[in-house]
C-alpha cells in the first residue's frame, strides 16, 4: 500500500524539510560506515595475526605429552594415610609417537581436515666455526609440510622441493644464518642432546617474519631426522593437522581423543594469548561501533521528537479527522524507516570507500605492506540490519508518543 494516504503524508514530511531528513540520515550513515570500517579493520588484523601464527602453528597437534605423575603409587591405594616416598621420579617409558601409521590412517578418515603432516622435531645445538646456538631441527615431509603451513613461500634462497632428494641438506632461518654466519652451500654442524653430531649442507634459507622462528628453526628431511635419532620409519614426534575452520577444532578433538593414546591439543589450548587477543579486539570493535550506532539512534530519536513537536497540531487535526493512533504511528515510523534504509545504503557505500582508503595506508611491519582490511559480506549485512533496528526503535518511541497525543488538549489551545 505505498500509495496510501499515510505514506503520502510521510513522504511529504520527509521532503518538505530535506535538510533535517539529511541530518537524520547522516547519523545512520556515519554509524553504519564506522561499524563497517571498524569490523573490517579488526577482522583484517585478526586474519593477519592468524596467518602469522599459523605459519608455524597447526590447528590441531598430536604429540607425546609424557606420562602422568604416578610417582606416589601407595597414595592411590591408601589415600587417607600419610605416605612418604623418598626421591620419587616420573619415569618416561615412551618417547614420541611410535605407531604413527595407524594414527595417520585414522586421521585420513576424519571430516573437516584439509591436511596433516608428520614431524620429527629435535632440540639441538647449531654450530658453525666458533658460533653456537640452540634451536629446533624439524624433520619434515616436504610435500605435506608445505600443504599445511605453506612453508615453501617463505623460502628466500634455494628450492623447497630440493629437500626431498638431499638427505644431507638443511634449510635454516634467516636470523639463524646471520648469527652463525651461514651462506648457501656452507656446512653446519648439529649436536643432539644424546651427543650425536652430524654435518649438513645449507641448501636453503627461509624467512617466516616471526623472529623467534627465523632465529631458531631449521628443516631437514624427515628420514634424515629419524636417522639422526636412530629410530624406525614409524617414529614421529608431532602430527600437525589443518582444518577447514580453525575456530571450530573441538568436534574433531572430541572425535579422535578416545582412539588416539597421545595428547591431542588444539591451537586454542596451546595459545590462549592469541585467542584472548583476537576476541578482545573483536569486543572492542563491536563495542565502539555499536556505541556509534547507538549515538546515531539517539540523533534520530531527537530529530523525530522535534518533528513531532513541530507537527503536534497537524497530528491533532489528523486525529480529529478520523486518523487512528495506529495511523499516526505508521506515518512517523515510515519516516524513520525510510531514513534508516537510505542512511544504511549510503553508509554501506561510505564504509566500503573508507575501508578501501585505509587499506591503502602503508604499513610495513612483519611482512605486511598495507593496513589489513577485510570485506566480508556478512559484516555489511549485519551493519545494515543493526542500523535498521536502531532507527526502528529510535523512530518507534517518538511515533508512539505522537499516537498518544490527545487532540482535545491541543486543539483547544
Amino acid at each position, binding site marked *: 500500500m505505498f500509495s496510501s494516504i499515510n505514506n503520502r503524508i510521510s513522504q511529504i514530511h520527509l521532503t518538505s524539510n530535506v535538510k533535517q531528513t539529511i541530518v537524520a540520515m547522516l547519523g545512520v550513515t556515519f554509524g553504519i560506515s564506522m561499524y563497517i570500517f571498524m569490523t573490517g579493520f579488526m577482522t583484517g588484523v585478526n586474519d593477519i595475526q592468524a596467518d602469522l601464527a599459523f605459519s608455524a602453528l597447526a590447528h590441531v597437534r598430536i604429540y607425546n605429552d609424557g606420562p602422568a605423575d604416578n610417582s606416589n603409587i601407595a597414595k592411590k591405594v591408601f589415600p587417607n594415610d600419610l605416605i612418604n616416598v623418598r626421591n620419587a621420579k616420573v619415569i618416561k617409558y615412551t618417547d614420541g609417537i611410535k605407531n604413527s601409521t595407524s594414527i595417520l590412517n585414522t586421521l585420513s578418515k576424519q571430516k573437516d581436515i584439509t591436511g596433516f603432516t608428520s614431524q620429527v622435531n629435535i632440540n639441538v645445538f647449531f654450530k658453525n666455526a666458533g658460533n653456537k646456538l640452540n634451536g629446533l631441527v624439524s624433520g619434515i615431509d616436504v610435500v605435506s609440510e608445505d600443504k599445511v603451513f605453506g612453508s615453501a613461500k617463505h623460502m628466500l634462497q634455494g628450492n623447497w622441493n630440493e629437500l626431498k632428494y638431499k638427505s644431507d641438506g638443511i634449510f635454516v632461518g634467516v636470523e639463524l644464518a646471520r648469527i652463525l654466519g651461514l651462506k648457501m652451500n656452507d656446512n653446519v654442524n648439529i649436536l643432539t642432546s644424546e651427543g650425536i653430531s652430524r654435518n649438513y649442507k645449507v641448501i636453503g634459507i627461509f624467512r617466516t617474519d616471526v623472529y623467534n622462528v627465523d632465529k631458531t628453526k631449521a628443516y631437514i628431511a624427515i628420514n634424515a631426522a629419524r636417522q639422526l635419532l636412530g629410530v624406525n620409519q614409524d617414529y614421529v614426534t608431532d602430527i600437525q593437522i589443518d582444518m577447514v575452520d580453525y575456530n571450530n577444532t573441538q568436534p574433531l578433538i572430541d572425535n579422535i581423543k578416545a582412539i588416539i593414546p597421545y595428547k591431542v591439543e588444539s591451537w586454542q589450548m596451546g595459545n590462549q594469548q592469541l585467542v584472548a587477543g583476537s576476541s578482545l579486539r573483536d569486543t572492542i570493535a563491536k563495542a565502539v561501533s555499536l556505541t556509534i550506532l547507538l549515538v546515531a539512534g539517539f540523533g534520530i530519536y531527537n530529530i523525530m521528537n522535534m518533528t513531532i513537536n513541530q507537527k503536534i497540531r497537524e497530528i491533532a*487535526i*489528523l486525529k480529529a*479527522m*478520523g486518523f487512528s493512533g495506529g495511523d499516526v504511528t505508521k506515518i512517523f515510523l515510515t519516516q524513520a524507516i525510510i531514513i534508516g534504509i537510505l542512511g544504511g545504503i549510503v553508509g554501506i557505500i561510505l564504509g566500503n570507500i573508507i575501508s578501501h582508503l585505509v587499506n591503502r595506508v602503508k604499513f610495513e611491519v612483519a611482512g605486511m605492506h598495507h593496513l589489513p582490511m577485510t570485506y566480508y559480506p556478512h559484516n555489511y549485512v549485519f551493519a545494515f540490519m543493526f542500523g535498521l533496528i536502531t532507527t526502528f526503535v529510535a523512530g518507534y518511541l517518538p511515533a508512539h508518543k505522537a499516537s498518544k497525543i490527545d*487532540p482535545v488538549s491541543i*486543539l483547544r489551545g
Partner: protein
Amino acid sequence: MNDIILKVDNIVKHFYEPEKFQVLKGISFEVKEGEFLALVGKSGCGKSTLMYVLSTMDTDYEGTLTIKDTVLTNQSQNQLAAFRNENIGFVFQFHYLLPEFSALENVMIPALKLKKYAKAEIEERAYKNLEMLGLKDQALKKVTKLSGGQQQRVAIARALINDPAIIMGDEPTGNLDTVNTQIVFDIFRELAKERKQTIIAVTHDDDFANNCDRIIEMKDGQIV
C-alpha cells in the same frame, strides 16, 4: 430512523487540574437532522468543553452520547476515530490545515482515509467542494499561500468532503472579518437547508447566533 441525529443524556464532566471542578452539570438535549444550532455563553461556561464531548474526541465524561442512533459512549479511540472520519466534519477557529500540502490535497485527506471512493473520484469531489466555496482557482496552491478567509474556506471544504451528517465548528468565524464571516455563515446556512446536514457551532458572535435555527445558551455548566 427518526430525524433526531444527535442526543446527549445527562452529560457530567469534571476537570481535575488544577483542582477538581465540575464543568458540565448534567446536560441533556437533542438535535434534529438539518438543524443549524449555535452554542453560546460566556467564557468558561463549558460550551467548548461540551462541543468536544459531542465531537467524540473527549471521552472522559459521564452520561450518554448518541449520534445517528449509535451510542458512542465507551467506544474505543480507534472506533471513534473511524466514526468521526465518516460522520463528523470539523471547522476550528484556526484553520489547522496541513501546511505542506496544497489546498486540494488538504481537502482530499479525510476522504483518502475513508476510502469510500477511488482517488480520481475523490479529487473530482474535492474540486466540486472548492468550487462551491469559490476556491477552484486556488486548488493547487499551497495553503500557506492563501489568505486567512480562503484558508478557513479550505478547512470547510475539507470538513464537507465525506458528506458528514454533522458539521461542528469551534468558533468557526472567530478569526474572520465581517465579510468572510458572512460568507462562512451563508455556506453553513445552505448546507443545513439544501443538504440536510446538521451544524453545531460554538460562537461568541451574537449576529451569527441570532441567525441560527436554535440557540443553546449555557451558564456555569448548565443549559439556560
